[in-house]
């Protein structure tokens, strides 16, 4: 549940994927459904920021990308791939509010500074 004592494995996943073009992500230990989700994010993250809408839509309903209560390698991987595109203006902050929330959470869990979100931007309530 808690994100204290974060393993350095997540930071390694993050750092490796910051610089390398080929994804470095071991998904062999994930369950089948999570492996499928991870593969989807490997594909979609290769098309960032064009697929930020898909990322935002997923994070609307889940705190972490694979669900559950723990930050995962997939979160670290996708954050690394998203990091060059996260410094949003006001309009994009509102449009991609779920990406902002998630990225801020994951960067904190990993102990890295990827971007400085403006959490004071007023966003109109979303309707399902």
């Amino acid at each position: 549940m808690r994100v204290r004592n974060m393993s350095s494995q997540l930071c390694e996943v993050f750092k490796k994927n910051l610089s390398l073009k080929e994804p470095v992500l071991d998904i062999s230990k994930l369950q089948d459904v999570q492996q499928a989700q991870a593969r989807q994010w490997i594909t979609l993250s290769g098309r960032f920021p064009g697929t930020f809408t898909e990322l935002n839509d997923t994070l609307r309903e889940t705190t972490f990308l694979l669900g559950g209560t723990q930050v995962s390698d997939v979160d670290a991987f996708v954050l690394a791939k998203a990091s060059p595109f996260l410094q949003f203006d006001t309009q994009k902050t509102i449009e991609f509010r779920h990406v902002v929330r998630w990225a801020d959470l994951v960067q904190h869990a990993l102990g890295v500074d990827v971007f400085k979100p403006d959490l004071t931007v007023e966003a109109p309530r979303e309707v399902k």
Partner: protein
Amino acid sequence: MPVLVVAGKAQTPAYGAAVLASYINAGNPSAVFEVKAVDAAEVGEGKVASLDGKNLAANEAADALLQSCKEKPVAEWKDLAFGTLQTRNFKEVAPALEKIESYLNYHSFFDGYQVGPTDALVWGALRGNGVVGNACKSGAYINLARWYKFVDQALGSVIQDIADQLKDAKQKEKAASSKKKESQA
């Protein structure tokens, strides 16, 4: 081990205290509190919980448990959990739900970057309020639903434990009653 007893049929059950007990237990190597349920509207003296035999109102029980919690809840949200969120009038609760929804636009939790005592209290208040149950789960409030699901996964099993205890007690009572009838026949 201190025992928190929750009156399962109370109009405002002490779910905030129960979830807080679950949170405190999760943060320690072994359980600090035992949570028990009674199939009644009160534990006695008009109170809905007891801690180590002392009867308490729902908020008093949560406050007593907070004494054992290293982190302190955020006052603004604690006040909401102890007040408006326990109201059984949806029109009165709705502005508070809007406020929560707005806050959770950019925040995953009320206690910063992980679930904390404030999340436990707010979630417990919502879980114990039958009027808002559907609003929390249906996705009418998108951020609230996401957060609610997360805290449910992290701490909510204590509420199921309470329900299971009440069910067990009822079955035992039923079995004892039919045994008594049989012996009388």
